[in-house]
């Protein structure tokens, strides 16, 4: 993805749900995407497959294995959906057709993509349902007869059915109890690894991300604010938002940060996190920081790190910037 | 008749192919038995299967039918008919006096209606029948009606249920598919002139426009009741022939003479002067028909008075008459008033088969009467509603047709007789004239009486007679030798033969 912008036209003006997103998902990699709710994760996932609603405008470049998806005509886009790039939606109760039995909705995929017979496809559907922990007999049931977690798992089953080259999973484990969650996560990850496929895992579950994901990208208010190897980001977060996020986990004290995510209609000037940031600098409110490398493959969008300073949780740094941010780029001294 | 058709018979032999005629009619035959009236176009079919004792030729002259001759006693109360011999019904049973007795027995509905005065029908011998009446009556005229023909007693089974039509006519009943078609085949044993056709199929096509197209496409060879507005167009079409002849039907505006404003003869006369019946014929009916100008008897009818003075339209006269009657437009709104009441009248039109011609006629009448200051409200109603208003006397005018169904039928004038509950007209002189005419047997006297009746109606206007209708039949290219007859429910197929290319 290069410099991806997604704007939704609304009655109030454009909502910039994704702004200047450049991100790559490598072959065989699981990339975790975390971030504040409403920051544009789902939008990003849908944008890849061009499934956004009519009022969305996508600009930039999305290249999948040498194909620029955004320039494809709608007809050809179809060949990338499902088989090449699969997606598990976030809201299963709205994304399953209420008048078709779940089994049929899964079987359909096999029949369409693999040309299976009806019988065979239904059997396969049963198998994959069993795989996500649902009795295959329930394939005859309709979505409204399923519990929230079961629908979630049906979504997973549908996403996995084709073992796509790239899987976009939007919170695939929400609403599942811990055991099932792990089981499902392992199932997905296992499959992806086995097929040497890639995955974009959108989640709010940092623990899950911690244990299954190769790299993590953190989003805030429509922008990527930090990307890096999982261990790096979790243990050594560079952006104050990532840090706050980690602190807010129930395990680490449930600490909350005051304030609310900015509206995407008119995001704050400068760094978008600055109103809530506890390390706020003067420049933060004026200049929009760029995403840059902090150390090998660890990028962040924060002025603090630009100076190569590691944040200390306790101290409030009193740094001032000497030069304009545009000049900072050339600075090569990045400490790891 | 014999002489006329001889020549065409040769033509038939020369003609190739089947002699199966297809006729498009508007309604099906719902009843084949004499306990009910053969309504609508059923009579055209009956006319092929059944025959009457007395018949009319195509110009409405009385000629022998199944009865070769007849005579009456001097008082006109006893009628003796001498029946034709060697006639057999379609099923082979002989036609004789018993079958006549059967046909005019008490179970035939005519005995409850117009033939009520008949006290007894008896077979004097095998081929002589005697009708005894309660009052003098020109019975043969009545017996020309095709809805009251002679049927074979064998049309009933042992229990007295109707099984199938058994007549003596030139064609035999073959099959019937309800509301689709009736198939008749040639009666090889017909007593009269042999029909040239082998088979006649009547197709039921209720919609006139469809009937016309069916003729144009050749799906049928002949259609009856061709709409006036299609006549000119069809005439111009190659191969299609239009046959027209004046009939006994006359459209008329019947007044409610029992209530204001039409209880005043002057007001009725004013209407008569206002309406230009020639315009009606020319502009509404495309020139088909003959303007009546108040004349009750169509010129084709026996006793129609050729010298009768009819109305010529005169709006000023009409207005004067109205004014004389007290109706004057005082407030200048174009509507006359009397005692402050505006001249507002209702005109009832039936929604039935006549609607197509009566609707525009009624509107023209409305428009015309408006000019003399009469505000006419048209109400298009179904028969039930009309009969209700009629018996309650809750109307001013009715536009109707068809009382004068066929031939020299003396009963016609009963329509305004005070004995008729629907007449809404009370005039002793008139009643007397009608009764007298009905009972007179001497044709000289009859003629005089009927002439004076016509004059009376024109003068007193219990109804204003508008248009004498013309019967229009169209035939396709294959049809030869058709001669149209004035008698309307009668369809004369005797001379027809087909030449298909």
């Amino acid at each position, binding site marked *: 993805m290069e410099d991806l912008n997604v704007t939704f036209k609304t009655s109030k003006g454009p909502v910039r749900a994704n702004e200047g997103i450049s991100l790559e998902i490598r072959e065989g990699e699981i990339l975790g995407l975390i971030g504040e*709710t409403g920051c544009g994760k789902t939008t990003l996932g849908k944008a890849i497959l061009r499934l956004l609603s009519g009022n969305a405008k996508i600009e930039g470049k999305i290249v999948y294995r040498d194909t620029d998806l955004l320039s494809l005509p709608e007809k050809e886009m179809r060949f990338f959906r499902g088989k090449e790039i699969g997606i598990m939606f976030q809201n299963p109760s709205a994304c399953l057709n209420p008048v078709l039995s779940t089994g049929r909705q899964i079987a359909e995929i096999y029949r369409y993509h693999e040309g299976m017979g009806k019988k065979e496809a239904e059997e396969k559907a049963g198998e994959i349902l069993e795989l996500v922990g649902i009795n295959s007999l329930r394939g005859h049931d309709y979505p409204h007869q399923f519990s929230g977690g079961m629908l979630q798992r049906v979504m997973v089953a549908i996403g996995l059915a084709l073992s796509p080259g790239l899987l976009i999973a939007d919170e695939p484990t929400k609403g599942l109890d811990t055991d099932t969650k792990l089981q499902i996560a392992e199932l997905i990850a296992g499959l992806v690894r086995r097929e040497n496929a890639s995955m974009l895992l959108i989640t709010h579950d940092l623990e899950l991300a911690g244990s299954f994901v190769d790299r993590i990208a953190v989003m805030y208010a429509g922008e990527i604010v930090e990307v890096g190897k999982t261990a790096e980001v979790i243990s050594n977060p560079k952006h104050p938002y990532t840090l706050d996020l980690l602190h807010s986990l129930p395990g680490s004290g449930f600490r909350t940060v005051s304030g609310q995510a900015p509206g*995407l209609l008119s995001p704050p000037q400068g760094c978008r996190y600055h109103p809530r940031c506890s390390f706020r600098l003067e420049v933060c409110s004026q200049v929009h920081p760029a995403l840059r490398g902090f150390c090998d493959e660890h990028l962040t969008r924060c002025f603090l790190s630009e100076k190569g300073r590691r944040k200390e949780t306790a101290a409030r740094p009193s740094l001032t910037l000497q030069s304009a941010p545009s000049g900072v780029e050339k600075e090569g001294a990045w400490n790891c | 008749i014999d002489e006329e058709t001889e020549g065409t018979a040769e033509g038939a032999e020369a003609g190739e192919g089947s002699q199966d005629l297809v006729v498009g009619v508007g309604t099906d035959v719902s009843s084949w038995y004499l306990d009910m009236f053969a309504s609508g176009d059923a009579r055209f079919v009956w006319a092929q299967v059944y025959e009457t004792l007395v018949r009319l030729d195509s110009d409405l002259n009385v000629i022998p039918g199944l009865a070769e001759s007849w005579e009456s006693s001097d008082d006109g109360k006893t009628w003796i008919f001498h029946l034709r011999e060697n006639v057999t019904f379609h099923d082979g049973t002989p036609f004789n006096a018993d079958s006549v007795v059967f046909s005019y027995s008490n179970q035939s509905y005519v005995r409850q209606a117009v033939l009520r005065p008949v006290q007894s029908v008896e077979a004097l011998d095998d081929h002589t029948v005697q009708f005894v009446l309660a009052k003098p009556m020109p019975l043969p005229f009545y017996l020309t009606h095709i809805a009251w023909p002679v049927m074979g007693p064998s049309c009933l089974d042992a229990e007295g249920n109707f099984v199938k039509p058994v007549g003596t006519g030139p064609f035999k009943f073959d099959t019937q598919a309800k509301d689709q078609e009736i198939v008749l085949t040639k009666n090889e044993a017909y007593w009269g002139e042999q029909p040239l056709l082998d088979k006649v199929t009547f197709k039921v096509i209720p919609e006139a426009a469809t009937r016309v197209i069916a003729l144009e496409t050749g799906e049928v060879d002949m259609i009856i009741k061709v709409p006036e507005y299609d006549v000119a167009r069809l005439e111009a079409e190659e191969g299609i022939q239009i046959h027209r002849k004046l009939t006994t039907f006359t459209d008329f505006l019947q007044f409610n003479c029992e209530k204001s404003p039409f209880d005043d003869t002057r007001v009725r006369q004013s209407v008569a002067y206002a309406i230009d019946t020639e315009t009606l014929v020319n502009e509404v009916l495309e020139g088909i028909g003959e303007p009546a100008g108040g004349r009750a008897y169509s010129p084709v009818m026996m006793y129609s008075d050729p010298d009768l003075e009819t109305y010529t339209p005169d709006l000023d006269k009409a207005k004067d008459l109205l004014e004389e009657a007290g109706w004057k437009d005082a407030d200048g709104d174009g509507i006359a008033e009397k005692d402050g009441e505006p001249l507002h009248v209702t005109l009832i039109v039936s929604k039935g088969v006549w609607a197509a011609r009566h609707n525009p006629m009624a509107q023209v009448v409305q428009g015309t009467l408006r000019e003399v200051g009469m505000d006419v409200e048209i109400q298009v109603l179904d028969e039930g509603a009309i009969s209700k208003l009629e018996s309650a006397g809750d109307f001013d005018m009715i536009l109707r047709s068809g009382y004068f169904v066929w031939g020299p039928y003396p009963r016609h004038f009963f329509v305004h007789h005070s004995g008729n509950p629907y007449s809404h007209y009370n005039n002793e002189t008139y009643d007397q004239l009608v009764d007298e005419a009905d009972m007179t047997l001497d044709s000289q006297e009859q003629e005089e009486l009927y002439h004076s009746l016509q004059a009376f109606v024109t003068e007193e206007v219990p109804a204003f007679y508008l248009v004498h209708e013309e019967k229009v039949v169209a035939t396709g290219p294959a049809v030869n030798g058709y001669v149209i007859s004035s008698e309307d429910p009668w369809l004369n197929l005797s001379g027809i033969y087909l030449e298909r290319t």
Partner: protein
Amino acid sequence: MELLKVEDLKKYYYSGLFKKEVRKAVDGVSFEIERGETLGLVGKSGCGKSTLGRTVLRLLEPTSGRVLFTGQDISGFKGSALKNLGTRMQIIFQNPESCLNPKMKVYEAIVEPLRLHRLCKRDEERERVQELIETVSLSEELLFRYPGELSGGQLQRIAIARVLGMKPEFIVADEPTSMLDPLVQAQILSLLKSLQENYGISFLFISHDTEVVKWMSDEIAVMEEGKIIDFR
């Protein structure tokens, strides 16, 4: 006296067009919740938690069993008593994406209960909505969007705001934070907790996150196959 008492509640689902199938989603459940207390409800996915939550509120007619709210059997409630119950017992649904009327804007969705129960004056309405949406950490710019134009987490918080506006005494919270990031989740949960402390609200709190349930609840019930097998 306990605020809510559930006695041997059963809810069976019948399905099948021509042949009957019965699914015993809730099969004889009894529990009590005191005022100001939270009962956590955990259990494997599909064990009947949501069904229980909805049946307790009588959104589903129970197959059998009783639900007593402040000592009264709510199954007999009608008319204004039932209407009144609306402001006292509420539920935050598990699937916010389908729980909002697709043709109603967010503002209308939040204001709906307020108007319905006349919980505030007409002229204070807007202010109240503003307040509510901010308590769930959302920006006001969302107010005039349709549900289809919001993210999962935003929908979920709107569902919460809508319920909070009524200041109910008892709330069934069916995985109220499943779509929220930890930061916001912490905010919302703290909000719920502080509301509980200030107003004595009781919760039936359904969640899969053991940490969260532990943090929220006074007591935890464990469900399996439609029955409560353990109280912790």
